[in-house]
């Protein structure tokens, strides 16, 4: 028979376990960040950044709202880092569920399997730091039904009901990246794109200020080349590989640069690649393409040109920051002229001035499906209505 003391201890143990499972916090909210070094102050080491002169006003971190789109291997760790840093507000978007197959990655725990990623993340993050306001959306941003809501969250989601401060893209597919790009170009929101290659041994982060730097539509996606020949890569029977290490490193680079941008310290990188096989980190700045496919990007570029005409002083600061980039009116880095099909090798990569170790995922545009593709004319003047066509398709 257990003694009362033993039973009491057991009850306490179980209560803690329940609290952990429920994600209930073990501390109350803290109104003001303190720099006092006591073991109960979760912010003392962060506020020390200010004391040391690295960051001017660390406490500003509480005023910022950051959206994290995609709460997978990179996004969940990104959200955790920002939470531990005491960010003001996080808005998380994802429509996936936690699965046991995700357990090679950080953050999520086996007992969370089956829960929506945003819900599970919110519980954990809230218990780590109850001072952070967390808002979650469990939907796919690329569909027509959700896109408008997504954009309006970005426009009005800040702590003061205005536009959020920064968006971090931690999604794993081209469609979602293009959707984010579309939204950020439309509302002029600065964002970081991040990615880990499907071979798990390379990744990147890219900072996009619409109009100032290349947007995601300005050029084909860049890939960090590894010495392993892509064509030799065996993709039989698998879609993608992943490593917690690569994802953790990319999340680290992403949040580090986000903090530098938000808290204004150090230099914010506009592109950092990561080649895990050689521990090589190529960096560069990508200028926007004046023939970008997205008209909103072109509009933002014009606005930026006007802005620097009126504020030439910003350029002087820029040049100090980015020595290798010359800002001249005609010196746009990317040209998307029709590449000469007879000479495909010297197309994008040379005109983009990519640093060694980076290449484009593919060239666009060249001739569609060369020679063998004869055009079949659409007889769209036949005058059939959509309903008629739909019916014809149904009864075929």
């Amino acid at each position, binding site marked *: 028979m257990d003694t009362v003391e033993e039973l009491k201890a057991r009850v306490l143990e179980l209560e803690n376990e329940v609290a952990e499972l429920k994600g209930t916090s073990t501390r109350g909210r803290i109104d003001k960040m303190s720099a006092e070094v006591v073991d109960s102050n979760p912010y003392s080491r962060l506020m020390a950044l200010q004391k040391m002169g690295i960051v001017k006003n660390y406490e500003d971190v509480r005023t910022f709202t950051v959206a994290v789109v995609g709460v997978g291997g990179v996004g969940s760790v990104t959200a955790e880092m920002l939470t531990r840093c005491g960010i003001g507000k996080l808005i998380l978007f994802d429509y*996936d569920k936690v699965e046991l197959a995700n357990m090679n990655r950080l953050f999520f725990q086996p007992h969370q399997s089956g829960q929506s990623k945003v819900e599970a993340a919110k519980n954990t993050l809230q218990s780590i730091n109850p001072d952070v306001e967390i808002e979650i959306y469990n939907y*796919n941003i*690329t*569909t*027509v*039904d959700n*896109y408008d809501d997504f954009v309006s969250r970005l426009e009005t989601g800040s702590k003061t009901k205005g536009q959020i401060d920064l968006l971090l893209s931690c999604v794993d*597919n*081209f*469609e979602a990246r*293009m*959707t984010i790009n*579309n939204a950020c170009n439309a509302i002029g929101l600065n964002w970081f794109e991040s990615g880990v290659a499907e071979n798990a041994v390379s990744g990147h982060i890219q900072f996009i200020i619409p109009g100032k730097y290349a947007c995601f*539509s300005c050029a*084909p996606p860049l890939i960090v080349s590894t010495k392993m020949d*892509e064509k030799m890569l065996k*993709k039989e*029977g*698998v*879609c*993608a590989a992943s490593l917690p290490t690569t994802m953790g490193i990319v999340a680290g680079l992403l949040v580090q640069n986000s903090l530098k941008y938000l808290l204004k310290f150090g230099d914010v990188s506009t592109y950092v690649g990561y080649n895990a096989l050689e521990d090589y980190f190529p960096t560069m700045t990508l200028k926007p393409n004046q023939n970008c*496919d997205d008209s909103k990007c072109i509009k933002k570029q014009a606005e930026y040109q006007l802005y620097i005409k009126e504020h030439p002083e910003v350029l002087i600061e820029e040049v100090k920051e980015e020595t290798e980039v010359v800002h001249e009116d005609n010196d746009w880095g990317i040209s998307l002229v029709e590449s000469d099909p007879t000479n495909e090798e010297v197309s994008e990569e040379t005109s983009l001035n990519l640093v060694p170790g980076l290449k484009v*995922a*593919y*060239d*666009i*545009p*060249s*001739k*569609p*499906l060369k020679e*063998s*593709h*004869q*055009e*079949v*004319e*659409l*007889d*769209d003047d036949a005058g*059939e*209505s*959509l309903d008629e*066509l*739909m019916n*014809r*398709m*149904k009864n*075929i």
Partner: protein
Amino acid sequence: MVDEATRKSLSGIPLLKTKAGPKDDPKLWLQRLKEEYTALIKYVENNKAAGNDWFRLESNKEGTRWFGKCWHVQDMLKYEFDVEFDIPVTYPVTAPELALPELDGKTAKMYRGGKICLTDHFKPLWAKNVPKFGIAHAMALGLGPWLAVEIPEMIEKGAVVYKEGEDKK
């Protein structure tokens, strides 16, 4: 990169003209939808004529959500699957992500929700052919080759089994 059979079926599909997505001017999107249906009808007719009829699709009236059936015939048995996808807001710059939800978890060549894992050739080809490629092209270039490779493998492994009466549906 693209096999001869796929190349041949692609070349018989009308190319689309209107670069418009579901968030663009409704008139343009309607035009695009008509082109989509025209191309799909032609493609299905081509398939039937070649004795290789393998899918049917229809959409909601807005043309933003598509669903239907695709099938694979092996040893005189017809294996049929539901196919569905949404038209992304960035269409036609980005291709739709075709999904066979009932096969989710049965093959590694899939992403969450049963979205099929496309070859490395698909996206570059799609990107080069915006806005000429449409849903019919995505089916021919993406789902067709995928079914041809993955279904026999899943049948062999027992992950997909023949359901009685499938042929009569």
